């Protein structure tokens, strides 16, 4: 067991003793450091490195290369941990919206549509805004064109704000339901893709089922209320 050096070199700070490195007594720094269970606080102070330990043991030296290496490693670990957390959060976020641009934009047969139906369900139901945007993009249109077309098609019931439209374009493009076809004078034109057409067709089918059921039930209810009268 190496003996303990109790000569304080610098200061006593917040209860932690700072001692000089015991190198000149023939200790090997890495052994000394590794014998300290909590040798983990590192601070670079101009060209010297101070390592302090929770239990009050500290090594400091301009020439303590091994200690310096150890400290730099610990510091690097701490920094990379910070970075890792950031990367981790970023990965989680990017995993939640995986881009879906690899869908070929060709003609889709009826069979494909049937097998894909469960796959399509994750896009559905479309919001009213998204539904109308996809309808409007049957032909290439830029943002303002979509706003006008949707207002006109929906007879003024759906009006799109630019923030809503910008976000919808971004999401739909990422999902591969629309694609950019032209860019001129800072205006981008988009058009629906084959995938987008599939999703739209499935949405329309669902809406038809909904209206059929609705009409039937509402009709029956009206019949009952008429009969009661």
């Amino acid at each position, binding site marked *: 067991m190496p003996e303990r050096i109790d000569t304080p070199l610098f200061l006593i700070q917040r209860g932690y003793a700072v001692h000089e490195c015991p190198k000149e007594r023939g200790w090997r720094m890495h052994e000394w450091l590794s014998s300290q269970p909590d040798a983990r606080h590192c601070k670079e102070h101009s060209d010297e490195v101070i390592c302090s330990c929770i239990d009050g043991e500290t090594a400091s030296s301009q020439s303590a290369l091994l200690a310096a290496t150890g400290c730099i490693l610990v510091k690097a670990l*701490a920094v990379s941990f910070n970075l890792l957390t950031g990367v981790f959060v970023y990965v989680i*976020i990017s995993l939640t919206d995986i881009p879906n641009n690899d869908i070929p934009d060709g003609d889709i047969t009826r069979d494909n549509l049937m097998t894909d139906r469960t796959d399509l369900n994750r896009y559905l139901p479309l*919001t009213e805004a998204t539904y109308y945007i996809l309808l409007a993009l049957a032909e290439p249109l830029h943002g303002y064109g979509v706003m006008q077309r949707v207002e006109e098609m929906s007879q003024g019931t759906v009006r799109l*704000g630019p923030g809503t439209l*910008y*976000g919808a374009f971004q999401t739909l493009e990422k999902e591969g339901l629309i694609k950019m076809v032209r860019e001129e004078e800072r205006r981008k034109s988009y058009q629906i893709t084959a995938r987008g057409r599939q999703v739209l067709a499935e949405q329309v089918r669902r809406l038809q089922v909904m209206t059929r059921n609705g009409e039937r039930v509402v009709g029956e209810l009206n019949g009952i209320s008429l009969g009661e009268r």
Partner: protein
Amino acid sequence: MEAKIERKFKWFWAWQDDKEEAWLEEMSRQGLHLKATGLPGIYDFERGEPGDYAYRLDYNTSHKDRAYYLQLFQDAGWEHCGRLGGWDYFRKPRKSGELMEIFSDRESKILKFNRLLTILVIFFPILLMLLTRDRRESDIAIYEIGRMLGLVLMVLYSLAMIKIIQRIGRLKKG
């Protein structure tokens, strides 16, 4: 004629964007139209005729395709009148029969606050780690001040996250 610039100081937290919009609209009714935003809490106004404007704030951190983004708003009648942090300030003269919102549905309004929340969530662990990692400086006073600032920042951060989550919750309920 040289336009007169008036500087005003007013502080809004990140979750008070609706209050900020209302205040800017009130300023415009008094003839003070937002000209530029500089540092947080500092607004430069141009003195002019009083006007009835809608002010709206969007939050975006991505900088790619900004020209296209601004063009889209401009085509819809919104004038870009400032940027601060990730916030974009837009203004449009109020006219009956025109849509006075930049977000026309609940989903996209929620997305705006989700973007804001994402940024807070990403930076929170970093702030936490900066704060918890021990740093013993020779000058203890400076160390303590730094620690205090960090703590205040963290309290604000937590408050912002809570407020924004509450806001999203209210929007979801409708």
